[in-house]
């Protein structure tokens, strides 16, 4: 079954025109293509934080607009490229993020477990402002993953990571997501990683 689909000709503000795209469910899919070809924009449209021209994107064969939008965003969660963490400890960040969703705070051991999946085994009392860019990115990812969406949209999750950590992170993610039936759509520039982890690859911006 298709997770997402959009017909040929979907375009965004006359700048980017997309080919027909079909993304499979229960897969680790990659979207690749050179910079500026509209990968991030496509992810944002999938997450309903950016308007797609009406009815042209389908989620589980229903137009995306037919879903109540906040529930949809909690089910299909985009981890944006630009990391944001509050000033404070990792624990406080989890609390503040969950508070924004008006949900109860996750347990310490759950937080620790998700941090470890995301290669971010830091103490919960570590202050986020002392973490490096790559460390912050992993903590940020752990917060989103801990909310257990059904679909995870990742926008260059390995951009600030070294090769070794990137591999471990994607390996852990793939394992965790397939165990928990989470579909993943990931934008990535690293061809090697795509070859190793992709169940499906969608290439954008290719000359035809």
């Amino acid at each position, binding site marked *: 079954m298709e997770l997402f689909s959009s017909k040929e000709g979907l375009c965004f503000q006359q700048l980017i025109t997309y080919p027909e795209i079909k993304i499979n469910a229960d897969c680790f899919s990659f979207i690749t293509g050179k910079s500026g070809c509209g990968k991030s924009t496509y992810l944002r449209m999938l*997450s*309903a*934080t*950016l*308007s797609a021209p009406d009815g042209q994107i389908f989620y589980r064969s229903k137009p995306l*607009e037919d879903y109540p*939008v*906040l529930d949809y*965003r*909690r089910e299909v*969660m*985009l*981890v*944006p490229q*630009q*990391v*944001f963490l509050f000033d404070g400890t990792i624990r406080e960040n989890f609390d503040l*993020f969950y508070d*924004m*969703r*008006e949900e109860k705070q996750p347990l310490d051991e759950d937080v620790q477990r998700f941090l470890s999946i995301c290669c971010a085994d830091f103490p919960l009392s570590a202050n986020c402002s002392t973490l490096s860019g790559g460390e912050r990115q992993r903590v*940020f990812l752990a*917060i*989103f993953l801990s*909310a257990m969406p059904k679909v995870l949209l990742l926008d260059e999750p390995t951009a600030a990571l070294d090769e070794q950590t990137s591999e471990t992170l994607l390996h852990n993610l793939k394992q965790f997501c397939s165990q928990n039936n989470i579909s993943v759509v990931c934008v990535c520039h690293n061809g090697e990683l795509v070859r190793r982890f992709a169940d499906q690859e969608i290439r954008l911006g290719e000359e035809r």
Partner: protein
Amino acid sequence: MNGIVQLQLWQFSLIYLLLLIVIFIMKRCSINRTKLLIVASIKMTVQLILSGLILTYIFENPHPIFVVAYVSVMVWFSIHRVLSNNKDLNKRFKAVIALSIASSGLFVLLFFVCVVVGESIFNPQYVIPISGMLMGNTMTGVSLGIKTFRESLDGQRAKINALLCFGAAPKKILMPFVKQSLETAMLPTINSMIGMGVVSLPGMMTGQILSGTLPTTAILYQIAIMIAICTMVTSASFGALYFGYRTLYDSKKQII
């Protein structure tokens, strides 16, 4: 107590000499705002001469129409100033700002003149100066509040986007910004209350004392006007921000 010394025109014009000091300092520090200063001084002079003449006429020929017209122009002008300082707001946000300035202005003015002072709402001697003070302060307060709101939103795009993606409701995300901007709008007024009477004798009180009013009466008016200003700034900024921020997201819960 003596009435105020009637200023002779030649005497009065001496005060403009002080501007030379300002120009001198500007030149020394190469602040290229001499033109602005001159334009501002001329505008101020002309506007005040006009309002002096108009007020003299209105006081001699009091008529509700004049009062209504004068107050409307003041309200319109302060709304216009706030909006021209914040050009890139959407239309609905602008309408909300205009409506909250106008409605809270009207309410506080009515309460002050009719309930506290016990005068008719059409008495120009009370209504016009008081609404002038109210509108002037409101203009500054609301302007500051909206500006803070816009700038803090612009500076926090990453935060807003991250929380939106995490599935937080726009209301929940934007409320802290509303609260912070409201605080910024209110603080100057509250702070000026703290220093009042110690460091500064405020304008209205000074004016009344100069014209021969007993200081004990003058302070009552001053206290009343300060509380009125505080209420007015708070309620106008609250209305503008609290109802205005809702215009920033649509039914798809995207924050514009």
